[in-house]
């Protein structure tokens, strides 16, 4: 538990309380939290609830659970039990939100990360249940995965293997994880920096006692070689660790060594920021992430390239769609966020082509839905997928199978934006950039587009006629296309 006081943008930590309880131990081995631990958790949280009374924070707190609860079969029972017995309302944090908050927390403490993001950065958060890995380069998110290889989880998986052999099992298992990562990354990807955080850091720093916020491979290797040969009691005596820390020490060391090998670095930076501290910063809106929008956009183009999209077409559709959006502001009354949504959908509307051209809009929808991007909500991604789905004129709005899943107010936004996407897509129907620019005029009940074309754009006209109906039906305005006639 972390209690902060904010004066302006300055945070002051009033209290930080830790009560060890390995809820994950049950979850990772049995799949549910044992009743005993449910009671223990309630007891601890009951203690915390007194603090909420003391500081009068009942209207101003956030209580979140991660993998230990998220993956437990009886998570709803657990949450309900806590609510009834302590009054605290727990929320389950999705993995992509979890890593986002953790990442922002570290970034706040370590502003140099901005540079690392440009040159190649592996950000990792190694906690008890999961290893989160974000790989960024040139302000793009190349990879973001939550891998089920957290240290506590590993100890639970391998608990039946004789102690002397366990480190070998860990080595192989983490080796498998690194192998998976290698397969997911583009070839010849150069990672220059590694930044780490998470509950594993405390174990490492207690063991290695580094002077600065850097740990070198050399120190890790020598510690690992020594510890491998020691028994639990020797480790406790030598490093002054708690029993629960010793249990996860070996898998933690191996994980770091393997990740460093994978990234090809000789040292890594770490942040001592705890998760509750990052949460305070995040939910109090102390941390800003001004690079988010660009990072997302760059990443979408990167995803497009992975699926061999037609980049020129995507860029042209973005250009036309945003121009129409800006001109029609009075008519559509949408917000900046919706403009961003439109742009995102335009970039990826055709990526389903890779599976098959005929139903590519359905495939685009499904591929986009699988995107997870820390900092963007599931709903945003879903809407983006639906807009892309609707770009094909054969889908009748209100009748299609995908948009009806959205709440009505979101549906309206989706219809407006996909009407615009359809027009923009039609204006580059040949994917050949025959139309280079638009001039848009709005009259009482009609929108006129005058297009500047290199050659007569047959296909664009044909497609425009097919695709403009939705626009008319959504906005109640006719839309016409005229092209200049002075062709060579």
């Amino acid at each position: 538990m972390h209690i902060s006081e904010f004066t302006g943008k300055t945070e002051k930590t009033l209290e930080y309380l830790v009560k060890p309880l390995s809820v994950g131990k049950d979850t990772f081995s049995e799949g549910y939290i044992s009743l005993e631990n449910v009671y223990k958790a309630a007891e601890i949280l009951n203690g915390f609830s007194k603090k909420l009374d003391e500081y009068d924070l009942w209207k101003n707190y956030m209580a979140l659970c991660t993998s230990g609860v998220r993956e437990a079969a009886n998570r709803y029972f657990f949450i309900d039990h806590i609510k009834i017995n302590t009054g605290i309302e727990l929320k389950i944090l999705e993995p992509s939100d979890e890593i986002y908050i953790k990442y922002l927390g570290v970034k706040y403490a370590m502003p140099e990360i901005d540079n690392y993001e440009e040159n190649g950065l592996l950000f990792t958060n190694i906690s008890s249940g999961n290893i989160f890995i974000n790989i960024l380069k040139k302000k793009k998110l190349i990879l973001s995965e939550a891998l089920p290889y957290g240290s506590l989880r590993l100890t639970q998986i391998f608990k039946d293997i004789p102690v002397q052999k366990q480190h070998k099992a860990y080595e192989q298992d983490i080796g498998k994880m690194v192998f998976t990562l290698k397969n997911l990354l583009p070839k010849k990807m150069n990672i220059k920096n590694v930044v780490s955080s998470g509950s594993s850091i405390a174990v490492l720093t207690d063991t290695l006692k580094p002077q600065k916020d850097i740990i070198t491979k050399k120190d890790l290797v020598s510690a690992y070689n020594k510890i491998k040969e020691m028994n639990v009691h020797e480790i406790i005596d030598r490093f002054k660790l708690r029993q629960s820390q010793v249990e996860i020490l070996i898998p933690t060391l191996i994980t770091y060594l393997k990740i460093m090998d994978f990234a090809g670095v000789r040292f890594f930076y770490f942040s001592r920021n705890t998760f509750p501290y990052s949460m305070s910063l995040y939910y109090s809106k102390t941390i800003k992430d001004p690079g988010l929008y660009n990072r997302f956009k760059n990443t979408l183009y990167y995803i497009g390239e992975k699926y061999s999209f037609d980049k020129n077409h995507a860029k042209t559709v973005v250009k036309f769609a945003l121009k129409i959006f800006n001109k029609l502001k009075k008519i559509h009354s949408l917000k900046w966020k919706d403009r961003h949504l439109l742009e995102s959908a335009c970039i990826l509307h055709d990526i389903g082509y890779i599976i098959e051209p005929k139903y590519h809009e359905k495939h685009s929808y499904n591929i986009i839905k699988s995107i997870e991007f820390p900092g963007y909500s599931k709903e945003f991604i879903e809407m983006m997928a639906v807009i892309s789905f609707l770009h094909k004129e054969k889908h009748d709005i209100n009748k299609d199978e995908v948009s009806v899943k959205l709440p009505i107010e979101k549906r309206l936004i989706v219809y407006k934006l996909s009407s615009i996407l359809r027009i923009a897509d039609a204006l580059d129907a040949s994917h050949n950039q025959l139309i280079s620019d638009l001039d848009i005029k709005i009259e009482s009940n009609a929108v006129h587009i005058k297009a500047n074309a290199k050659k007569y754009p047959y296909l664009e006209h044909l497609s425009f006629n097919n695709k403009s109906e939705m626009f008319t039906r959504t906005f109640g305005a006719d839309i016409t296309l005229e092209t200049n006639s002075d062709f060579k």
Partner: protein
Amino acid sequence: MKHLAIIDIGSNSISLQISEIKGKSYDIVEDYKETIRIGDDVFKSGLFSEATINSIIEVLERMKALMDKKEQPFIRTVATAPFRDASNAKEVIDLINDKCGINIEVIDGLQEAELVYLFVSANFQMSNLNALTLDIGGGTTEFILSKKGEIVFSKSLPLGITKLTRDFFNNNPPKKNEIEKLKKYIDETLDEMPIDKSIDTVICTGGTINNISYIYNKRNHLNDTPIKYIKRKFLKLMSDELKGETFQDRIKIEGIDHQRLDIIQTAAIMTDLILDKSKCKGFFTIKGGLKNGLTIDTLNKKGIKMHFQENVDVRLSRILEIGSKFSFDEEHARQVTKLSKILFSKLKDFFKLDDENWKLLEAASMLHDIGNYISYDKHHKHSYYLITNSDLIGYDDNEAEIVANIARYHRKSFPKKSHEAYNKLSNKSMSLVKKLSAILRIADALDISHKSLVADINVNINDNIIEIMPASKNNLELEIQSFNAKKDLLESITKRQVIIK
């Protein structure tokens, strides 16, 4: 050459297909079609009218715009019946060359049929079949008879459906005696053909017959796949439905192509008469026969052979193609398939499986990880999606669903009726999915390191225990670990303890 564009100018439509060449296979990146019945003129008056010529040029201009966006694609344009028959064909070809810079190659009926056959053999294991391949066009219909993969007879007959419709139907709707006369004519013409009961497979291509299969699939809530199987009964049903209806009234038929309202009846009647002479209770339709045949033919001429032309097994070649498309780890896929096969043979009798079931597990073993292409997280679900949306050869819709389901259950979750894709399977298919995914999980576990460490497996089954004994020269720590995590499904369905030795 990176891109190849094929334009097919037929009686009822002009279509363009652009492919990206990928080693020994190709991906269709553009599929564009305009239904324009240029044959009508020619069958009526013997030449192309001014208006028709202009429409052709307009369509070709639009197609050029689509082709121009690719870097110097190789373009091949072929024309069929109308250009063979029209008296002003040569002038039109010159004019088009002049105006659009497109050079049209006119091919005769038999060439057309052979090209279609080429594509058919990429999609059917012809060496097992006595097949009649039909290209049902507007002006002519091409017949190719093949036995065990060898063409034994081919002929082009003037049984084009637009032509027949025009020659026999003067009333709308056609009168009973007109239909009878048409049937008699077709029957007599077919009599010269060596179509008999030895034919076990009929494969049709052409826009109108494909429209019939599209309607069929719509009615039966089947996916719109490039290859479909239609029961013969449906042709009778279709003919009956169409009988009293005017062409205009037929619009209400769901899925019908509005440009083919008049000729669809002729296609149904003719196909039914052909099936009558064979022993087939149904037929396959295949889409884009000519265009894909041309694509393959053009590539062959450039010295590029397709997977199916080098491998005897087209089914397996397609699986490899799909795997490569989604960048699978081929070595791991092959190793898992090898282990699955060993386990399948050892557990076959115990599970009461047929040899036939192996192909389901084989495809699932090869493709179980392709979902990684979309993302590692939930990749089993993505594998399901990619498999159901890829065109496997030699698997019908239900079998493809089973394959995808087996792949979907290769990780943690058990098959559950609450999963929609599983729940829609029949009980028999569900039972197959359970058994085969239980095997796949073990096979995948035994190559968890992706290092092909296991050389062979022995299996012992008794009343309480199944012993799995992998043979390896290496340390299998990780494999054993993974085995213990993934044996649960096998234990649950066999009600026996599963141990590794």
